[in-house]
């Protein structure tokens, strides 16, 4: 009689199972463990190299705890500061809105050049795509610093910064959507005597418009988040107030500003997902 293991199988059954599912029973590859060990070693080196030490960590945590206690109750100070905060919040939303709009307006024609099926020349397509990559590769904050040199400090620089970095992102997404579109409607328009532009206007755009608008709304959401930090470099919006209040240790106002950001971002998220669902025609619950 053969022995049974904890799973209730006999040795013979076990051997049969092993033979049948060799892959499942194969000993774990050494490469997996080696990779995990290397990842952990790099983590340990990183923590050491970047100056993490228990002493520093816990004294910092202590101070952080104090800051958090100082944050309660959140407070806006006097009515004048409240008005200033609200104004910079409005500025933030305006920056995100105009920046996204401008980016979409410029990205649409450029994405036609960058899409395989609508481009006018392969060289131009390559050039446009690499330009998109470069625009995206530079962070919005860096663009903001550059635009400050052109139009001076203030929210306008923020609008232009968001616009230019999103031309890259939206252009790429738009051109991918255009490449994924159905050729038949464009061919139909051409077959009935339409020119290339007619094909784009009546065959392509109606197809891709809902997708593009959805992407633009999604970027509006994410730009509201990025617009909240543009003020840190002087490009308008609530970031200036936040960084000032943190630097002057006004923790109650910091907490109030953070709450303002949380509420605004969630309102914009809801609005945009409502709109996106309405445009996509889906009846899914807007969450």
């Amino acid at each position, binding site marked *: 009689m053969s022995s049974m293991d904890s799973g209730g199988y006999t040795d013979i059954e076990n051997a049969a199972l092993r033979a049948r599912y060799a892959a499942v029973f194969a000993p774990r590859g050494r490469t997996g463990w080696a990779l995990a060990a290397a990842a952990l070693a790099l983590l340990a080196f990183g923590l050491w190299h970047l100056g993490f030490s228990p002493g520093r960590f816990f004294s*910092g945590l202590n101070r*952080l705890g104090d800051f958090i206690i100082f944050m309660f109750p959140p407070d806006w100070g006097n009515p004048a500061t409240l008005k200033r905060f609200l104004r910079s919040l409005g500025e933030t939303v305006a920056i995100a809105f105009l920046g996204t709009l401008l980016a979409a307006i410029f990205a649409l024609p450029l994405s036609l050049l960058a899409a395989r099926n609508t481009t006018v020349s392969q060289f131009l397509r390559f050039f446009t795509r690499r330009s998109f990559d470069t625009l995206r590769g530079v962070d919005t904050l860096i663009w903001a*610093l550059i635009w400050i040199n052109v139009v001076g400090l203030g929210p306008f620089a923020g609008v232009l910064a968001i616009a230019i970095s999103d031309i890259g992102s939206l252009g790429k997404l738009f051109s991918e959507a255009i490449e994924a579109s159905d050729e038949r409607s464009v061919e139909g328009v051409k077959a009935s005597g339409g020119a290339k532009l007619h094909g784009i206007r009546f065959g392509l755009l109606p197809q891709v418009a809902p997708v593009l608008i959805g992407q633009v709304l999604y970027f509006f959401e994410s730009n509201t988040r*990025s617009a909240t930090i543009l003020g*840190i*470099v002087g490009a308008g919006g609530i970031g200036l107030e936040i*960084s000032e209040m943190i630097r002057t240790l006004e923790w109650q106002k910091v907490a109030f500003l953070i709450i303002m950001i949380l509420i605004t971002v*969630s309102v914009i998220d809801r609005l945009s997902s409502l709109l996106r669902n309405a445009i996509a025609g889906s009846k899914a619950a807007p969450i």
Partner: protein
Amino acid sequence: MTASAATPPRPSVEQLASSYAAEVAVKRRRFLIAAAVFAGLVLAAGWMAEVNLPLLFQNIHKFPSYIGRIFLLDSGPMTGRFVLNDVAGWYWGLGKWLRLLADTLLIAYVATLLGAVFAAMACFLAAGNLGASRWVCFVTRRILEFCRTVPDLVFALIFVMAFGLGPMAGVLAIAIHTAGALGKLFYEVLENVDQKPVEGLIASGASWTKTMRFAVLPQVLSNFVSYGLLRFEINVRGASVMGFVGAGGIGQDLIEAIRKYYYPDVSAILLLIIVTVFIIDLVTERVRRHFISQAA
């Protein structure tokens, strides 16, 4: 001839035309109202954001000239010439910048790993289908939402005050933001797992941890890794500007170069960042493909 009595009278052409015109008018009116509201919003936003088109057109030439200027050498015998004429002079600080770039990558790596570990722990509490109570689920989700909505630079500003200047503040700031962002993606993956293996293990008497380990984890691990790698890409970009608020990495040198008008340094550092981000995009894309094909 009785059939003709049953069919309703056909509407005249005029009737059809007028109802069509009415329909079109309704549609047109709706479109005009929407356009007017939109135009109003644009104007209001333009006023709020202090848009100044004359100023823009007057100064727009400064934009290309700035871009051009960062590619001109500003010291040495080649002053005023294109940077490629003296690459060594252009990249005079290559050693220092590469060290800072390595720091930046390390910040992104450590922060992604720490954030992913927290996200992986939190997502089991935030998923609605794996036995966590509704209350725990709700609270965990709100915490994750808070972590991802507050921008990482704001966390960094606060942490610089608490932990002092340096990369530690940057790592913690990015880690918290990552935990929030990945936590959400992770629990959405968890909620979409196939329940059959889970039920099978529960039915055979496995404990909760064993169920998670053998029924859930194998299903979600490749997705987790893929999202983690995507986040690493994003975090490299994030870490490159952490230096703007004194939280470590190459951003410190970049903002100094921009603020103090060391033009060729700006292009040198920017180019390093862009190339690094590009290479990391390529590599992580490869690795992600590998994981996704393994999962399929």
